[in-house]
């Protein structure tokens, strides 16, 4: 109450109104995101005021595009986006789950559910050769919720192969080593995996080759452009000759660096028809490009910082920071390097590499919003594969886990608690059902029938999920519908926490600059 005294102008909502406001906010978000869930959900096309288009079926993307004002809604949205940051998927589930929890207006017992999740999960042995089929099933489950089936199935192979390509035994998977590149192409919708790299720039000299086979790759971070020296070399020259002499001397240093590269090229390429490609993180100015072109070298400047790492993983060799200690050992290798030009955009493909630990997923699409949507889906797919490898387990999907968890809570856990807490367990259990319910709703099925059918099967001890086409129960294991263990775990972890925190709010005080104008 002391706060009210301090600021008499602040609006104060009392306990019931505060609860109401929070529940409404959660419900509002749930309503918006609900229709996204599952392979039968609705894709959303967002058209901005200036005609910009965004396509999304991803809860994370949708949330980021929304202009959320309500503080409670922002809290929920933040939780959901954090979910995406951690596990790459499950945003929509988080939001609708929180919404449902809030509606059920109870808090407690995620512990029991988590324990159940541990029991329920299907362990997958990864070992040295991960089971590709399981990975594909997980990837397909998530991709099919974002893209239509044929496209999702095509991408499934790509994302699984991409992750397996960059996977090193005994090391955490770094998904940044999968570059996602896009091209805007008039008629083409196509995605392919390039074992190697695609860079979004080309050489800047007309005489350099546009296509070369059997290439040595020099990855370097050396400035090959004339820069005024940092040292205060005196600003004033007494005459023009002195100035010229100084410029020439500084220029000579750059030329020497270029010549060292040319020397190395001559050393490794003499007597064979191999080629030499320089990919530099720093700049290369026209005189240096000239020198390199005359020596038959292809040179790219200002490569992405992250690509320097990827190049070395894909082609071998090492990234050099100085040309003083150049040896043939620092060179990488690629079977084919070629340039592709689309309008003002240039792409350089570095392909046929020996032991790729880095690869590129190349997305072609007719417009930016299609590309952006495929990109989001590919990211989710990659994360799903990575999670599976790292979790070493998966969870049966199609709503099977949620129904099973509910059964467990009602039949086992409820009996172990006393008094009012029983109601809490029941509420929590029922909140879990929102996933199969929404899946059914989005498929145009009767939610009551579906839930009765599913719980009936579970009572008989059959673990089933929902067939979205027929509304019949199916065995997710047979159909290959698997969700990530870490995604489910995260949802159960964060949903009740945020919900219970919001429910603890007794009073909402709105104060501040724009106090009297809501919006």
């Amino acid at each position, binding site marked *: 109450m002391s706060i009210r005294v301090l600021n008499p102008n602040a609006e104060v909502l009392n306990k019931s109104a505060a609860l109401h406001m929070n529940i409404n906010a959660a419900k509002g978000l749930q309503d918006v995101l609900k*229709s996204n869930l599952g*392979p*039968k*959900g*609705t*894709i*959303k*096309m*967002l*058209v*901005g*005021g*200036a*005609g*910009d*288009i965004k*396509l999304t*079926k991803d809860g994370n993307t949708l*949330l*980021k*595009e*929304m*202009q*959320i*004002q309500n503080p409670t809604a*922002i809290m929920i*949205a933040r939780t959901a986006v954090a979910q995406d940051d951690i596990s790459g998927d499950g945003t929509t589930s988080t939001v609708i789950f929180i919404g449902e929890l809030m509606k059920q207006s109870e808090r407690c017992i995620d512990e029991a559910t988590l324990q159940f999740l541990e029991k329920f999960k299907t362990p997958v042995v990864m070992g040295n050769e991960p089971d590709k089929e399981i990975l594909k099933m997980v990837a397909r489950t998530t991709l099919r919720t*974002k893209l*239509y*089936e044929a496209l999702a199935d095509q991408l499934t192979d790509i994302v699984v192969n991409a992750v397996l390509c960059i996977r090193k035994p005994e090391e955490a998977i770094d998904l940044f080593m999968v570059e996602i590149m896009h091209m*805007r192409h008039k008629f083409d919708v196509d995605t392919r995996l390039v074992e190697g790299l695609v860079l*979004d*720039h080309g050489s800047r000299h007309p005489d350099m080759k546009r296509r070369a086979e059997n290439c040595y790759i020099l990855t370097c971070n050396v400035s090959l*452009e*004339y*820069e*005024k020296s*940092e040292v*205060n070399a005196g*600003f004033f*020259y007494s005459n*023009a000759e002195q*100035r010229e002499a100084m410029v020439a001397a500084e220029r000579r240093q750059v030329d020497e660096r270029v010549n060292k590269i040319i020397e190395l090229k001559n050393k490794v390429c003499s007597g064979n028809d191999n080629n030499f490609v320089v990919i530099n993180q720093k*700049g290369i*100015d*026209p005189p240096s490009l000239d020198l390199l072109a005359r020596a038959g070298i292809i040179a790219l*400047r*200002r490569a*992405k*910082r992250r690509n320097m790492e990827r190049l070395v993983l894909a082609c071998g060799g090492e990234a050099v920071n100085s040309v003083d200690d150049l040896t043939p050992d620092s060179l990488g290798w690629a079977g084919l390097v070629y340039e592709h030009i*689309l*309008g*003002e955009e240039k792409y350089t493909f570095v392909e046929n590499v020996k032991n790729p630990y880095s690869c590129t997923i190349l997305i072609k*699409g007719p*417009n930016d*919003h*299609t590309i952006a949507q*495929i990109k989001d*889906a590919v990211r989710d797919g990659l994360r799903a594969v990575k999670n599976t490898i790292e979790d070493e387990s998966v969870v049966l999907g199609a709503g099977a886990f949620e129904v099973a968890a509910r059964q467990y809570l009602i039949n086992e856990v409820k009996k172990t608690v006393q008094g009012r807490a029983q109601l809490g367990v029941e509420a929590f259990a029922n909140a879990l059902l929102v996933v199969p319910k929404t899946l059914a709703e989005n498929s145009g099925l009767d939610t009551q029938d579906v839930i009765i059918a599913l719980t009936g099967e579970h009572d008989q001890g059959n673990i089933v999920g929902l067939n979205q086409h027929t509304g019949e129960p199916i065995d997710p294991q047979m159909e290959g519908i698997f969700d990530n263990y870490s995604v489910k775990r995260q949802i159960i972890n964060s949903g009740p926490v945020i919900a219970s925190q919001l429910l603890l709010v007794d009073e909402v005080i709105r104060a501040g*600059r724009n106090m009297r104008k809501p919006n």
Partner: protein
Amino acid sequence: MKEIVTVQVGGFANFVGSHFWNFQDELLGLASDPSGDPVFKNDALNMDVLYRTGETQQGTLTYTPRLLSVNFQGSLGSMSSFGTLYNEVASTPPDVLTWTGNVSTHASEPRKRNLFLQRLYEEERDSLTQENAINGGKNKPQRETEDEDIVEYLENGVQYWTDFSKVHYHPQSLYEMSGLWMSVQEFDSYGIGRDTSWALREEISERLRFFVEECDHVQGFQFIVNDSGGFSSVGADFLENIADEYTNTPVLLYAVKDPGSHMIPKSQKQVVSKNLHDAISFSRLSSFCKLIVPVGLPSLRRSKASAFLCVEDEKPYHCSAVYASALHAISLPFRMEPLGPSADSCYFSGAVDIHGVVEILAGQARQNRVTILDVAMPAPSLTGKQVEQSFLGNLQTLTPEISEDVEDLQAVESMTIHGALGSGGHRALVSEVKNMVRAAYENATTRPRFCNLSVALCPLPIPLPFPKIFGNLVGQHGELLGSPVDSPLRGSLDVHSIPLAARLRSSSAVLPFLENRLGNIRRLGIQQGAAGAEIVRNLGYGKDELEDMGETLSKMVLELDPYSQMSSDSD
């Protein structure tokens, strides 16, 4: 040719930038206009320094600013973030190629183009049809009245910086930050800017790389950032990244403040918060650039800089126009083609690149990175003896919190005068201007140690969307009239071009600016039981970091005043 990449971060920075690019666009237009003033038609200024040539997928050639603009989602008004040139012809309704299930469309209310943008759009369409049917000048009288409507409309209707922009932008240029879920007022906090996601920073630097990769030899970055609120920290992070990635490329940083951010805070807490904010923001920004120019007076209207102007402080559209004019003048020498040390063109003299300006101002005996921006808008005509006496007095500062009349023998200056008028309303020759400035300095009581002078013949063109801010003493070509004309406010329809003088000054006059910030950081942040300790914690800074900032600031003070009291009182 040495390219410049321009970066604009924040709302007001983009207002300034929008005016800046309007000037460039006007210059390009006047140069290609067969009936235009010949003074604009020389190749002395190399626009390729600021612009890039490109090609759309349809094969149309484009010429767009080498610019990266960062702002809020929704701050582009009716402009699409893909710019205007590279759009494919919209197929309505666009088909969804990735989903066979249901599609729900959520369209926001289309934002209508305002009168001015409508007119640009129509002109573009007309110019396409006119190539087939030659009938120019038929509906001219009708246009005249429309011009006035447009100017009138812009005076009151400008909401977004795109409302008065007549430039085509490249799709990579306009970046909107999404997923922040907060209003502009809420973003007005340094700490919040620090929280912006890492993916966002990656995306910004990726876009910058796109522009830099094309450059054969980038001479530097021209960076305009809002020196308040969250954008300042977004800008600082970005600058840190640039300093890391393009180590030897100089950054010329304009830290702009819109007059709104000078609002008198209501409570003691707000005062503390604002002061700390300014200090932290300045210290962070200045540490990642070669030269920082604080721009933005608390009240431009009442300042001496607007002696011949009537600026309304509450309109960013007005204030940004003045600042943009000064920035334009400063950027002229970067675009002059150097002819060798001794040769001089009759159109300009004093070519120098960003690196050169940095060397002149910050690389001499005193390594002072903070410079003052002065402007004379419009610059006086070079008539009679008295201009030699009064010319320097016309240059008035746009940098806040500096002391006047400081005698600083170590001061260094870099001045640009362009389009100056001589006797009888003719353009003064380059040599006349040079002689006048020399005489002016000889007559002055205090002289800087060194002054670099750049002169161009070409005046500042006033494009149609320029605000009505000229007073009634400014003539059609920016000459100062003896007696006031009737209309109290004159805009782009009455004034076609103005001569301008702008100056960057490295002088100890900036000491109060630095000392205020140093004092604030010590008093409010570092001291035992400081009033702002809580705020600092909320911003996510530890005491060590704050002490480092204090250290940086006190070094800057020491550089200018070796005997400063401030520098030694740290316990």
